[in-house]
């Protein structure tokens, strides 16, 4: 049983090691990095004396050239710092004791470690005589700066967001949880990409069993490259075939930290400006960071509105198709007459109209996403105003169909999670087809199947429908109503947090 972060070791991805079985040597590195144009190596003399020859290796562009020059090569070649080192072993000890200026100096005994360091922005000093190396962290500072979140905007929240550099991202979280209880356990994933993955959790708050299970799944992950969140997500979630999102994505460090403090576990991947949270339930996808900043009444109202939007986005088109094609008696008379009047002279059936409009809506959305912003806005205007209005005037579609699909689309956009929104859009189309086939019975049937799937879904031991289905009233109340902070004393019991209370 896992009890402490140190139990996991410095890197718990233990597969395929050693990948390079040769001893550490400059020649060996040359062979490994053969045909790598950015691999640079330079032979220097320790203290400019001819006794000891060192090889300094780095990957150009990944490291800072100035840092290599000023912090490593310059001090190592100064005679005054060599202290008459008689052997390479003494030289190694001197380097580790401060002969080089770099803040980070690690002795490496295997070629795998050296290669890993080099690819992650280190500079390696090779001592061929004793087959050892010292690696210095001299990453280049040429990374994208921290900017405002683009997808999860908040009026009162923090204005920073994750970037593509893992270390920057961990620092953003660390600044919010200034405690050694915040554990950051890193490993490399990907045979070829060697992508750094960091598991973040608050010791004593996160469920140790869940951390251990995550470590086990990461350990079992054996892929060539980890370049997208989807690669990681589909390998570590409980039900990769399910369309429902099982990891919560956030670009906000403040939300990430809040979730950590709530008992969730975070994942950060080098090169991906998104943080992943687990375990999650459906309710987690309906919450936004702004809820914590808003007054509890406003936050409660907005939460209820989001749930309403969720149901409107899913059911409105299907209900319209079912009622308009099978259950006309359910429509109030005046509304029925209005719909008939609007539908008169439209040659297509109601279902075809709705399906066509949904597809057109998706096309417009995709077109808007793929194009640069100014052109994307133009596409939206052309789609919404010109094509939509012309279609209505030409009696190709009825205004009511446009209203239904647009309302559903707008409701879909109010969902905080784009992943959940994508599932809603998919489910909406399935429900429309079911409504076309069998009216409300078809909708009910698909809904039953969906609920069956929801009920059978787990995320790292947490039921996906929690707290709706665990029979506890208080978490259910807390799901819909954002209690004032002084009253919200306990963490979600479904997360099995060792520390149950969040305040006195």
């Amino acid at each position: 049983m896992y009890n402490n972060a140190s139990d996991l070791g410095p890197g718990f991805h233990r597969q395929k090691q050693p990948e390079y079985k040769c001893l550490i040597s400059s020649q060996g590195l040359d062979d490994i990095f053969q045909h790598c144009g950015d691999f640079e190596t330079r032979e220097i003399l320790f203290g400019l004396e001819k006794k000891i020859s060192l090889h300094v290796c780095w990957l150009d562009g990944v490291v800072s050239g100035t840092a290599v020059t000023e912090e490593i090569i310059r001090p190592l070649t100064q005679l005054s710092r060599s202290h008459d080192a008689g052997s390479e072993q003494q030289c190694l000890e001197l380097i580790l004791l401060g002969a080089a200026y770099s803040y980070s100096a690690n002795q490496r005994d295997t070629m795998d470690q050296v290669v890993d360091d080099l690819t992650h922005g280190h500079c390696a000093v090779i001592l061929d005589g004793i087959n050892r190396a010292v690696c210095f962290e001299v990453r280049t500072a040429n990374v994208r700066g921290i900017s405002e979140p683009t997808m999860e905007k908040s009026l009162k929240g923090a204005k920073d967001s994750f970037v593509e550099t893992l270390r920057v991202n961990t620092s953003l979280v660390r600044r919010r949880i200034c405690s050694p209880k915040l554990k950051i356990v890193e490993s490399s994933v990907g045979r070829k990409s060697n992508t750094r993955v960091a598991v973040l959790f608050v010791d004593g708050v996160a469920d140790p069993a869940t951390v251990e299970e995550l470590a086990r799944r990461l350990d079992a992950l054996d892929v060539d490259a980890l370049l997208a969140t989807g690669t990681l997500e589909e390998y570590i979630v409980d039900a990769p075939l399910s369309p429902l999102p099982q990891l919560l994505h956030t670009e906000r460090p403040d939300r990430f930290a809040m979730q950590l403090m709530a008992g969730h576990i975070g994942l950060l991947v080098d090169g991906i400006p998104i943080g992943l949270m687990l375990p999650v339930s459906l309710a987690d996808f309906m919450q936004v960071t702004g809820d914590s900043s808003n007054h509890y009444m406003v936050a409660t109202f907005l939460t209820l509105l989001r749930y309403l939007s969720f149901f409107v986005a899913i059911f409105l088109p299907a209900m319209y198709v079912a009622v308009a094609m099978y259950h006309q008696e359910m429509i109030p008379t005046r509304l029925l007459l209005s719909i008939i009047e609007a539908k008169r002279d439209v040659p297509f059936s109601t279902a075809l109209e709705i399906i066509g409009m949904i597809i057109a809506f998706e096309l417009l959305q995709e077109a808007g996403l793929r194009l640069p912003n100014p052109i994307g806005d133009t596409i939206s205007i052309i789609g919404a105003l010109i094509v939509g209005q012309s279609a209505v005037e030409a009696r190709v579609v009825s205004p009511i169909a446009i209203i239904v699909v647009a309302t559903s689309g707008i409701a879909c956009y109010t969902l905080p999670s784009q992943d959940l929104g994508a599932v809603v859009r998919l489910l909406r189309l399935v429900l429309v087809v079911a409504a076309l086939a069998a009216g409300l019975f078809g909708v009910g049937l698909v809904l039953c199947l969906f609920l069956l799937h929801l009920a059978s879904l787990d995320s790292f031991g947490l039921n996906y429908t929690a707290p709706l289905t665990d029979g506890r009233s208080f978490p259910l109340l807390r799901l819909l109503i954002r209690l004032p902070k002084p009253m919200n004393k306990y963490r979600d019991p479904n997360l099995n947090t060792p520390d149950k209370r969040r305040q006195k």
Partner: protein
Amino acid sequence: MKRFLSLLIIICSLPTFSGCSSIYSNYREIQQLMVIQTMGFDREKGAMQISMAAAAEASGGGPRRMSAQGGTITAAIDRAYKLSYEEEIFLSHVNHLLVGEAAAEEGLGSLLDYVCQSPTMRIDIPLYIVRGGTANQAVMEVGDDNKGISEVMQTVRESFASPSNSHVFTVADTINSLLRYGSALVCAVECVPSSEPIGPGSGEGSQQGSSQDSQQSEGQTGQQGGDQTAQQSESQDTQQGEGQAAQETAQGETPLMAVPAGYAVIREGKLCKFIETEDAVAVGLITDSLPITDITVKDRNGKDAALELTHGSADITPVWDGSGQLIGLDVQAQVKASVLETGSWEHSDGNEYINHLTAQLESAISQRLSELLHCSMQLKADFLGLAGQVERKSPENYRLMSQSFPELLPGLELEITVRGQLSHTNDMKE
């Protein structure tokens, strides 16, 4: 495997969810529906004649009407289905059911039975008897090119309806009352000529004139019944034949209007009597659903004064003799009213004046209650649901009654007490 089997069972059960027919057969396009809002039922030479009117189209197409005949209601409706080849007749949104007077006299049984058993029609549809005419005439001729019977009946319904909407008796109310008390009340309408052209384009002068005419006709509904019957019978002669749609209101003719015409008493499923519009106050008091309505009394100078009834209720207490037999009903009514219009220029804040009007109000209400209850007693028809009130007051005695309540009705003694209160006079001179 279990999950797969569960899914298989659910998918296989899909066709059973769609009822007796296959899953595609009950699909229909919404724009192909002819939404019937008003239906009329008549009996003609032993055959059932139905008349149907859809709502007027917003595009100005006017209301669509049609009629058909058949041996039964089902046969007549089937005939109508065949005649409407372009659109599918849709009966789930019927809001008004009209029955001709002659058909109602023959009996409402088949109609009520059809509505009860129809899979498409609701039982909370208001039911009306067309007083002195046929339902066909009302459906086919009321209104003009812009507005049809459905729009007119909506106005009629609102004028019948109290704030609680309980004055419009539905099919369900009628069936319930017939089953419980053996008789029922149904709203009555009559078709009267209106000189007011309905819809846009009418001049201001003609509107004023028609308004006066309309008021006159409303005020004299009871007296004009005979003349209207004659007019209606003439209209019936010009009626379209079976299955023929009629777009009425020829130029130069006065379009017909449907107006409230009191209530019809249904006993044992058949029409037996009409109750005049003025007695609606008494009906409202007994059924505890008094509408806000006006009543005219005489002031101290013998001139008419209009009072507006705002609240009222009646409490009926059964009177039992020593042997447990029901011997009478003690009716105690309370009404509140305000003065709308006085007949003479006089300050209306004097106690003497108020007391006089209050006494007049009490007298008028008492008279109407008396007339209504005596009507019920004479007909041996408990259409007001008095038995229910007696049962609620004295359930044990009611259970031990040797005769049925309608049998006892003619011999009951009535004690009517009305307490009136004029809450305010609306007199700005005060």
